[in-house]
């Protein structure tokens, strides 16, 4: 099956006077498959938005190619099947319902279908009571929800979301998370760029991490989180001082050791007269991986030449 979004050796350099070049993306390759929620992570300035803007055709790559829903980047025909929400969403000041209809009409929709669809997506994002209000008077969170509604109005095959929940309260975040999961169940593909690692951890099937324009991690979220060299051992009947870094609670002692030292640690527990309660590979969080990745030396930057 052809990928819905594909970058092939894409490099993007920003040029400014005099002869300065900033490489935002460096030989970046990535394939996003149909039907998955794909998390796209990286620190500020890592190149996430540049990659998204290239995919949407807002800019051209310095070198390399890419395809969006089978069409080269920049094709208007492909964008008809895409829903896009930009970071710092900016919309025209008019009534929410009219605005969503305007964006739907730009995608070739019309008539009563568009009217119904506009109402439906605004209800989906919880703005059913604000259909007639001018978005110029909306809070940032509400604007983000209208932005999400305009991205959904054409019932897109691929949703590209750049920080979709950054301005939302916890309740709205949960609602958006559920909306994304429902969209995946309906066979949609979601490309999600976010700084909210806990959100990404909860919904994404695969994750890519970008650092200074280079892809530094790519894999299934579950695999990345379990790819740990540490094992957690929980035991009882031993003193907390027996193992370095051990923590005791209600007579239960837990500590972690490297996987290679796991057997020796278990034998030590038994030799001390203790009982093993559980042994499990230590799960890492995306935050741990993210910090590990972004703590790399600055010299890896594609950089200012």
């Amino acid at each position, binding site marked *: 099956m052809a990928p819905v979004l594909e970058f092939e050796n894409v490099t993007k350099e920003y040029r400014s006077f005099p002869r300065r070049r900033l490489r935002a993306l460096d030989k970046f390759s990535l394939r996003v498959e149909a039907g998955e929620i794909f998390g796209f992570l990286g620190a500020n300035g890592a190149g996430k938005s540049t990659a998204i803007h290239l995919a949407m055709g807002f800019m051209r790559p310095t070198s390399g190619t890419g395809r969006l829903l089978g069409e080269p980047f920049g094709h208007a025909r492909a964008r008809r099947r895409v829903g896009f929400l930009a970071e710092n969403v900016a919309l*025209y000041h008019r009534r929410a319902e009219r605005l969503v209809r305007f964006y739907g009409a730009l995608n070739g929709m019309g008539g009563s279908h568009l009217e119904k669809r506009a109402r439906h997506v605004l209800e989906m994002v919880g703005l059913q009571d604000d259909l007639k209000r001018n978005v110029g008077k909306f809070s940032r969170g509400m604007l983000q929800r209208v932005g999400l509604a305009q991205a959904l109005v054409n019932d897109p095959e691929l949703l590209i979301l750049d920080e979709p929940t950054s301005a939302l309260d916890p309740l709205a975040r949960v609602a958006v998370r559920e909306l994304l999961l429902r969209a995946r169940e309906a066979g949609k593909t979601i490309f999600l760029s976010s700084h909210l690692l806990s959100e990404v951890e909860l919904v994404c099937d695969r994750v890519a991490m970008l650092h200074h324009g280079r892809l530094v991690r790519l894999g299934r979220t579950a695999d990345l989180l379990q790819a740990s060299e540490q094992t957690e051992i929980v035991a009882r009947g031993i003193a907390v001082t027996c193992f370095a870094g051990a923590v005791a609670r209600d007579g239960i002692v837990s500590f972690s050791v490297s996987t290679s030292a796991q057997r020796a640690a278990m034998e030590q527990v038994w030799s001390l007269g203790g009982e093993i309660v559980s042994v499990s590979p230590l799960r890492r969080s995306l935050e741990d991986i993210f910090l590990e990745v972004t703590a790399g030396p600055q010299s890896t930057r594609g950089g200012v030449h």
Partner: protein
Amino acid sequence: MKPVLLIAINFAREQRWPIFVLLLWVLLLAFLGLVTDIRHDREDLLLLFKYVAVYAVVFSIFFGGSAIYNERRSRRIVSVLSKAVGRQQYLSGLVLGVTLACAIYCFALGMTGSWTLGEAGFPVSQVWFLMLCLVAACTLAGTVALTFSTFLNPFFAAGATAVVLGLPALASHTMGPQWAYVIPVWELALTVIRASFDSPGTASWFLIEQAVAQTVAFWLLSARIFSYVDIAVAVE
């Protein structure tokens, strides 16, 4: 065609306040028509009519020169171009939007002019012919400004437009009248400025045709340039 129309209407809507301010001048003309003796003050009315008409050309340069910049600065361009809208369609929408904004103004001016100047003895058909010249001049001037604004900021785009519109006018005075047909904004504006009760306007349809043809040429050029421009980066 539908996205082009939507973008054009949206552009005119976004420019509603400048258009409203322009329309205040038309209201002033209408007010003078009401309170003065039209027959007696007809030269003054015609002078005001000409002034108010020429403002439209100046405004069309500002409309065209700032359209892309404003859309980029507000980031709204991203929400439009993320839809099934090509760059050429977007530019076409802006050209049509500038034309629409100027046409609204010229229509209001034409209506008021027909009434006030018509009462004073100026041929009504000639008022509308002058408005047609004005719309053609505005559209061409706006498109030239839009072309420059694809790669310059609004200030330099307006300056470059003034030079490009002014040079053929200068050349037509120094090197021969054939230069008047090159970007004929000045020549079309002169048609309005020279209009009098004795000679209500002598512009040829050829000049209007030239303006339309050159608008298309600048529109194609601007679309070509704009297709290579990165639009998502900060403009400041």
